[in-house]
């Protein structure tokens, strides 16, 4: 790692974990915690979508995995009495496993065909949640307990959120930490041979196969990692709102995850994070425009995609294609 890059990472961490909380305490804008927690979690989910883009597949189905992860965590907590911290990886792994089953057949499709099928997935997930007894239909699952204590060998790593004076801050820190970890993982993947192989897949699947890459397996692997992120984010959202309904994640959420990636830049690991931040805040800021909110928002999106087809981050990229 170069020195400037290390400095950048340091500044980022300082901003996220120190400056933001300090700012909120000074100004008393506690609502920012909720907003920023949402941004962090949405960007975790979007990171997964970005990875599927990276193997050359347009994924408009991440909402399905967020919903699935949310239900897995909620059901395990309310019906199994499982500690939230254990449900978190389980939700991710369950989503990854399901995505393998779904991915094997559908990842053969390319372009608009794959995109269409994934778009339908979110709706299928919602209808399934409506129909199944275990998800409690339209009534959803409510009064989910706050995350309990996480301790290892009697040592408390994370206190019970219910005993905290300020669970908002705790949720923010948790979401931010998860976001940092997610993007660290993503960055490692992209800058390792795994990432090079994903790029080869994106650029030419036939050639990739002919140099000996098991393309079918690599696609499924990338999709499983993507869905894992979706499930994690969904599970935490559920913990924050302490409830989940079939409509907690819908098609428009799936579409948004994809837009975050587009806006930030498909060629940049940190694209989806920036895209999420910009779009989420942009939408909020535009609320002053009232009935024109959606119009201005969509218009700006279209304009941005025309002017910056490689995403906002391409503005800062002088070399072109660097990560």
């Amino acid at each position, binding site marked *: 790692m170069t020195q400037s890059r290390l400095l950048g990472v340091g500044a980022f961490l300082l901003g996220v974990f120190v400056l933001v909380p300090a700012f909120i305490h000074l100004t008393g804008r506690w609502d920012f915690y909720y907003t920023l927690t949402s941004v962090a979690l949405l960007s975790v989910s979007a990171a997964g979508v970005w990875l599927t883009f990276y193997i050359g597949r347009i994924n408009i189905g991440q909402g399905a995995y967020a919903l699935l992860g949310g239900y897995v965590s909620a059901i395990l907590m309310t019906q199994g009495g499982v500690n939230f911290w254990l449900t978190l990886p389980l939700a991710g792994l369950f989503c990854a496993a399901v995505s393998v089953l779904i991915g094997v057949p559908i990842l053969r499709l390319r372009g608009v065909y794959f995109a269409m099928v994934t778009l339908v997935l979110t709706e299928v997930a919602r209808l399934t949640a409506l129909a199944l007894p275990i998800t409690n239909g339209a009534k959803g699952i409510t009064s989910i307990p706050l995350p309990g204590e996480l301790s290892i060998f009697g040592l408390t790593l994370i206190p019970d959120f219910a005993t905290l004076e300020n669970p908002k801050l705790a949720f923010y820190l948790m979401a931010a930490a998860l976001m940092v970890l997610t993007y660290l993982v993503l960055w490692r993947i992209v800058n*390792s041979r795994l990432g090079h192989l994903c790029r080869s897949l994106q*650029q030419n699947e036939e*050639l990739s196969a*002919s*140099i000996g890459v098991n393309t079918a397996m690599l696609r499924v692997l990338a999709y499983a990692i993507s869905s894992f992120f979706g499930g994690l984010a969904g599970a935490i959202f559920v913990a924050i709102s302490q409830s989940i309904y079939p409509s907690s994640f819908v098609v428009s959420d799936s579409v948004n995850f994809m837009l975050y990636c587009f806006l930030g830049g498909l060629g940049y690991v940190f694209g989806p994070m920036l895209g999420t931040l910009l779009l989420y805040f942009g939408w909020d800021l535009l609320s002053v425009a009232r009935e024109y909110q959606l119009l201005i928002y969509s218009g700006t999106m279209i304009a941005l995609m025309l002017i910056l087809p490689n995403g906002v981050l391409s503005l800062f990229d002088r070399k072109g294609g660097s990560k």
Partner: protein
Amino acid sequence: MTAPILQIKGVTKRYGGLTANSDITFDVAPREILSVIGPNGAGKSTLFKQIAGFVTPTTGEVLFKGNRISGMPPHKVARLGVVRTFQETTIFKSMTVRENVIVAHHLRSKASLLGFFFGSGQARSDEEDFARSADDIIDFLGLQAIRNEMASNLPQGHLRALGMAIGLATHPDVILLDEPFAGMNHDETMRMVGLVRRLRDERGLTVLLVEHDMPAVMKISDRIVCINFGEKIAEGTPAEIQANPRVIEAYLGSEDAAIGM
């Protein structure tokens, strides 16, 4: 006579009512340079695709070192040591020449998935080996000057050479070159002919190639197989093929064959 490295046995490929390959049979000896010729649409590329695992024969089989490889997926065939280059220019567009060749070394990597992720010692030493080997291949093909060019910016002749470099990076025993000299001028072609010969002489490769450039084919080949309408109509040395009336009628006399260059 040594045992053949590749055996094409009664390979037939039907696409609906169209028979692209009809009962094609021939053997390829180790370290042989064998050309497959024939008019446009004769079924040459289809044959290569079946050897490399991209298309499964309707009937018949392909054996490599005595084992059946037809019907296997391409990555497994490549792992065994049979790799193809593509007739359409096929490279990784948004990578540099060097990145293209490095990534194509995948089959040589000994690290595990987690090794890649955590940057294990094995993964790192693999990457160093690949970079070195990639530079060797680039030098061999005379691509030094464009090592760091984006592949998408290259002219046709260089793209062909890069396609071959990617194939060589898998360190195959058998390489199938589909029209490797297309888009090259006479000098470039003759230089490539020399390089393909050296692949065989110095690295012990077995080379199959499809080409329409007849002077190059006659110069480079040990043996030639001629296909017409999916059927093998002749097999023999360049001299035998040039004198074969069926070949002359079907192909050499036609406009498809680029005879005088």
